[in-house]
């Protein structure tokens, strides 16, 4: 259905876009495209989570670690990720390694900060309870502090997931030859305008699905958290 208010190649009819989207879904384009994007995202995100939780716990538990790392964190954190993209390309080239690094670096900070907050907010009574049963420092961190801080950690991870997707797309656009970022940019350059819009729709749906998936995972892992919060307020 066309109203024919705008007649330019940059505004295709919605029906054309949706049809193109559907075709790309059915013929497996998106599967391939998302496959490579998600792979980079997943690796970078998991590296970021592992490092951020480890360092975050260290910073939260030991004051000296906090004082050591905090200036560096506060210096690097505010830099928008596109700013160090050229540096990353210089050092790491234009392969997946560079993209994974970008994703990891950008995803690192929200998880780190939230982990530190979470560890700091663990009730001293919980820690003392561990101590009176003979738990050593590391056991207390693993068995008491981590579960107690889990709510905060998951919040940080949820924020970082959104950032990870953004950075993946940017990295693919700037220096890529596969993935959804490249696909969208390439479509624009090749004047495959409906494909470009369709790609954006696909990306939006991916972001939505990732977030919903994460929330479901969070709810499963933290079933006790909601009930506990409700009972203790």
């Amino acid at each position, binding site marked *: 259905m066309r109203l024919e208010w705008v007649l330019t190649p940059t505004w295709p009819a919605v029906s054309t876009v949706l049809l193109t989207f559907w075709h790309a879904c059915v013929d497996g384009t998106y599967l391939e495209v998302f496959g490579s994007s998600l792979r980079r995202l997943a690796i970078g995100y998991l590296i970021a989570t592992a490092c951020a939780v480890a360092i975050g716990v260290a910073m939260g538990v030991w004051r000296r670690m906090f004082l050591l790392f905090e200036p560096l964190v506060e210096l690097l954190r505010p830099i928008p990720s596109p700013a160090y993209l050229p540096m990353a390309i210089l050092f790491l080239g234009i392969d997946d390694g560079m993209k994974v690094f970008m994703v990891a670096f950008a995803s690192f900070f929200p998880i780190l900060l939230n982990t530190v907050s979470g560890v700091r907010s663990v009730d001293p009574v919980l820690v003392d*309870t561990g101590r*009176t*049963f*003979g738990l050593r420092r590391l056991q207390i961190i693993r068995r008491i502090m981590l579960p107690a801080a889990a709510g905060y950690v998951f919040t940080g991870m949820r924020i970082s997931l959104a950032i990870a997707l953004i950075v993946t797309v940017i990295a693919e656009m700037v220096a890529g030859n596969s993935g959804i970022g490249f696909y969208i940019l390439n479509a624009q350059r090749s004047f495959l305008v409906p494909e470009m819009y369709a790609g954006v729709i696909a990306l939006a749906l991916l972001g939505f699905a990732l977030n919903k998936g994460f929330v479901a995972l969070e709810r499963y892992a933290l079933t*006790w958290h909601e*009930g*506990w919060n409700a009972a*203790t307020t």
Partner: protein
Amino acid sequence: MKWDVDVRPEIAVEGVGKVFGAFTAIEELSFEVPKGRFISLLGPSGCGKSTILRMLAGLAAPTRGAVSFKGAPVLEPPPGMVYVFQQYTKSLFPWLTVLGNVEFGARSPHAARAGGRTGREECMETLRLVGLEAHAASYPWQLSGGMQQRVAIARALVARPEVLLMDEPFSALDALTRESLQDLLLRLWGELALTVIFVTHDIAEAIYLSDEIVVLSSAPSRILTRVSVEIGRPREQLATRESAQFLAHRRSLYQLVVGREQAA
């Protein structure tokens, strides 16, 4: 000082003091706790009773003097001793069920040292002892205050301690629940041959439960007196609390604790 093994006190506090910066919380305390006794630390709020108990438990260090348990100095929480906190909600692990919390106690390093059975059956048995076997699969925050404190007690007991250190465990509960838990505690103390050090500001509670009451002054604390409670056991909420001995103790302790407060 050499102690004959048979009469060696379970816990010995020698010249213990605690200073927080410029504030002297505890001036100097010395006392011993013989094995198997039920001792109360009684004093007004803010007199440092909890601080003393934490030092006994190895959770805090005295700035002066020393605490010893079975002859060995207490530098960190020793096996054989478990501390039960006043704030049960903050002490029970919210990500574990009631049974999970008790299993934590059963599998803790201190329990392992005591060499007890740590299986699920042992944990369920302990829950039965405190009357909570029906709630094993619930989460602690789903239970009432009294039930939560019972979970905390079960978790402590399953670690087979010789000494139970209790920091005003019933003060956050309503009167009826408090009384039923007092009786539960006395029963457990009798059955399991524990040594209990019980901190409270409630004079009647101290008299009802204890063999001996250590009365503390307000900060900077020191021991005002030690009262031996000769009332026979088993004690009963109504009969004991109406007895002449009980009332006499109450009167003298009230004058000692509250009278001093009013004079101060």
